[in-house]
């Protein structure tokens, strides 16, 4: 596959300089064949139409055979002979009337389209090459993405086709305000990228900035949307995620309605969104389809979950190792009784359990599903239990790491980052105790406060505190009460009201 692209790229350079004057169907066809190194999957056909030689070439794997027959070959063969008419015009306007037809005057563009799935029609003596879109789209069906499961709410998820994904969005947005800006990135892959946003809501300067950044990308290929992340984020080496990702059209439209901009990449079911704030991770699409009081409770739970996930093992080590005097006596008795006879220091013990859990997680993730289920039970129950019974680790250590590990997945989008932070907290807790853990927390908060994602503060609307945006922070008010678009995200301030002024 890659060798084919290499061949194509070498020949492109030669083709660039070639300008078409008058098409010699056979010669041009041979030229294309040569340029594409006689690639086996390139199919050609030559036939007579109105007495003129017409050549057709296409890549068999990416061309819909049925469509080719029904839309091009059969109509051509069945079309009544007419010596008066111009061959090219007849083909364009009558034979291929119900297909998307593009005219090329330069061979390079024609070959580009051929590689993208178009079928080229070369008419002898014409000054244009016709390209018609007869591409065969092979994609997954629209399914519910595994990371954005909802109890109530839309279950459609994006798939790997940019066309399908755009269709899913268009189906929800029937507005002339919705803009799709297409571009191609990747010298070899020529991946289609779409920047989508609402013209009246998105901040124009951000759209400009994103477009500029994307245009500047010089890369062989874009395989997935995450390839773009490092080009788009400001703090390249930061541990924290600075660009949002969504897998569902309802979430994307919701975000765009707040003034965000989406970037869709062909071949990836993940759509990137910008600007991104940390708070987005606390929010879930389910939140907007459930009762506000319940949502408020769940969001606070998520926040507490994150704190527990990151800090609990570090705090436990700090308390056990340095600050037994601030523990209530009963709790201290429990810890003393359970940690008695453990051969490791508290740090090694926790580190051992963390490693155990991380290995289990990684193994479980990549195992076949039927085997994975059995392994998780074996890992969690038997390994943990036997480690405790063998006196290698204490029950509180297992419980604390397990609790912390589960709490990560309250916010699955940040689980990877948080596991690194947890490890840092454990090391600092073991080295410096509670004082160190506290300073570490301030450092993290300070670090997160220090960077902005496309004019939006990362910790907004908490720091800086934006009172108007508190309706959808930890507490969520009803949709009716959320009259204004969030101020914490850089959007077009002129259209900050979500609804018409006459509505109450």
């Amino acid at each position, binding site marked *: 596959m890659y060798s084919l692209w290499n061949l194509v790229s070498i020949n492109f350079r030669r083709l660039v300089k070639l300008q078409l004057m008058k098409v010699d169907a056979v010669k041009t066809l041979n030229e294309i064949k040569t340029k594409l190194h006689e690639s086996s999957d390139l199919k050609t056909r030559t036939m007579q139409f109105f007495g003129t030689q017409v050549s057709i070439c296409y890549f068999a794997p990416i061309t819909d055979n049925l469509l080719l027959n029904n839309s091009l070959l059969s109509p051509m063969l069945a079309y009544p002979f007419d010596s008066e008419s111009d061959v090219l015009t007849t083909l364009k306007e009558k034979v291929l009337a119900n297909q998307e037809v593009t005219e090329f005057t330069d061979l390079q563009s024609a070959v580009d389209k051929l590689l993208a799935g178009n079928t080229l029609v070369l008419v002898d003596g014409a000054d244009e090459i016709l390209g018609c879109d007869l591409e065969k789209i092979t994609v997954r069906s629209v399914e519910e993405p595994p990371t954005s499961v909802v109890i109530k709410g839309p279950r459609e998820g994006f798939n790997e086709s940019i066309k399908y994904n755009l269709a899913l969005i268009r189906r929800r947005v029937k507005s002339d305000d919705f803009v799709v800006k297409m571009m191609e990135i990747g010298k070899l892959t020529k991946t289609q990228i779409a920047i989508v946003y609402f013209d009246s809501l998105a901040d124009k300067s951000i759209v400009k900035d994103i477009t500029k950044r994307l245009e500047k990308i010089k890369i062989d290929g874009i395989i997935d949307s995450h390839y773009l992340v490092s080009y788009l984020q400001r703090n390249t080496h930061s541990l924290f995620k600075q660009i949002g990702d969504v897998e569902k059209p309802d979430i994307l439209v919701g975000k765009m309605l707040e003034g965000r901009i989406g970037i869709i990449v062909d071949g990836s079911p993940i759509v990137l969104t910008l600007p991104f704030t940390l708070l987005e991770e606390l929010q879930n699409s389910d939140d907007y389809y459930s009762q506000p009081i319940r949502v408020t409770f769940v969001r606070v739970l998520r926040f507490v979950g994150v704190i527990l996930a990151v800090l609990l093992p570090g705090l436990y080590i700090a308390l*056990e190792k*340095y600050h*037994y*005097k601030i523990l209530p006596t009963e709790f201290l008795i429990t810890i*003393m*009784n359970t940690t008695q006879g453990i051969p490791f220091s508290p*740090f090694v013990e926790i580190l051992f359990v963390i490693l155990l859990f991380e290995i289990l997680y990684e193994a479980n993730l990549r195992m076949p599903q039927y085997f994975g289920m059995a392994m998780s039970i074996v890992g969690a129950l038997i390994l943990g239990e036997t480690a405790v019974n063998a006196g290698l680790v204490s029950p509180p250590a297992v419980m604390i790491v397990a609790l912390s590990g589960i709490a990560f997945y309250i916010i699955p989008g940040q689980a990877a980052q948080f596991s690194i932070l947890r490890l840092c907290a454990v090391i600092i807790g073991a080295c410096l105790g509670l004082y160190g853990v506290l300073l570490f927390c301030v450092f993290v908060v300070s670090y997160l406060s220090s960077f902005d994602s496309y004019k939006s503060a990362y910790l907004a609307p908490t720091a800086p505190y934006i009172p108007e945006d508190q309706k959808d922070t930890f507490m969520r008010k009803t949709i009716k009460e959320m009259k204004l678009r969030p101020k914490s995200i850089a959007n077009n301030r002129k259209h900050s009201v979500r609804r018409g002024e006459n509505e109450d």
Partner: protein
Amino acid sequence: MKKLKTLFSPRKLVVWLSIIVLIFTLPTVNEPAMSQTDAIVTMLCVDKVDDKIKVATTVLTPSQDKKANYQVFSGEGETLGSAVDSVSLAIGKEMGFAQCGIMALGDSLCDEGVMQVLDYMTRTKKVGRNAILINFTGEIIEFAQAVSNLSLEKSLNLDEIINFDKRYILSQDTNIETFYIGYYNNVSLGIMPKIKMESEEDYNSIEVANTDSGSNSDMTTTGGGGEDKKFIVNDGTISVFKDGKRYIDITPDMVKKINLFINDAQKGSIVIDNVSDHIYDDAKIVLNILKKDTKIKPKFENGVPVYNAEVSLTVFIDEIIEDNINKKLLTREQDFLTSAVVGKIKEKVQQDMLDATSFCVSKDVDLLSVYKYFYNLKNKQFEEYLSTLDEKNYLDGINFNIDIKVKSEN
């Protein structure tokens, strides 16, 4: 210079300093928990025997089951510091006093003064100032062992017992902090509950095995039901300290009487005799105090300080001890708190309170906070009054006025 600048760029500086911190602190990473390297003391007993300070501690030790396990260690020395060090040497661990909830002080130490011990333990050894203070009578190791066994065998904690007492008997906190506050006040008064060691069985006594009292730096073990069985007796007696030294002991009966002046003491009971009227016939009635509100109003009448105490009691008839209980008692419509009962209550409470005042005056112990009320509320007049006293007890010249109101439960 440019290299130096890049070497000390802010981002790199953070990395450099983090590395330095890790270099210094990483060796400590593998150290065991301090809860394992320190001996966690839950109770400290101090006494003076033959001019030497003797110390006994109950130390928390891990056990296989989920319960707490305590062991008693003791030591002695010329000073408190050396005595504590000798215990530390015997255990082979640093003594951690952060969890020390009780400080028990022996009689002879209390007679000589406890402030030095308290100062050393709180300032140097960091015993929390909320640790409960106890004055104990008896042999120090026996006491420590008895308290330890109380937890181990009966699952009862002495601090819980004292805290319960606070609601029913003492009506005041008896921790180091309140002792300090009392000591540094103008009257320099402090109180501690008194726990006795008796050989006889008592109503709230706890069985404990006699132990061999060890010599220097020894560990005492439970004898396991020998012939000389001893008990901890908590009968509600209180030791009163003046200027940090034990001054007098107050009987539980007198404590109850004094409590009538103290607003915090809400619980209690009153027993009245010979009640006779249309319902009762020479009955003995036990009344439960449900609510008590004491208002102290100090004032000066013609230059004489008057201590006015208004006591409002809400009572409930608990027990009626009568030979032939009147049938009327069966009818619930009757008001059992008859005027005869109320009169008797007033008479009894008045008498109890007067007993308390005369006890305080005669013993020169201001347990009724007379000084505090007059000094704080009638400062100028009281200072004038004090200046006229010379060496005389200021309580002598104070008039006590008592006014009692009684309400029924409803």
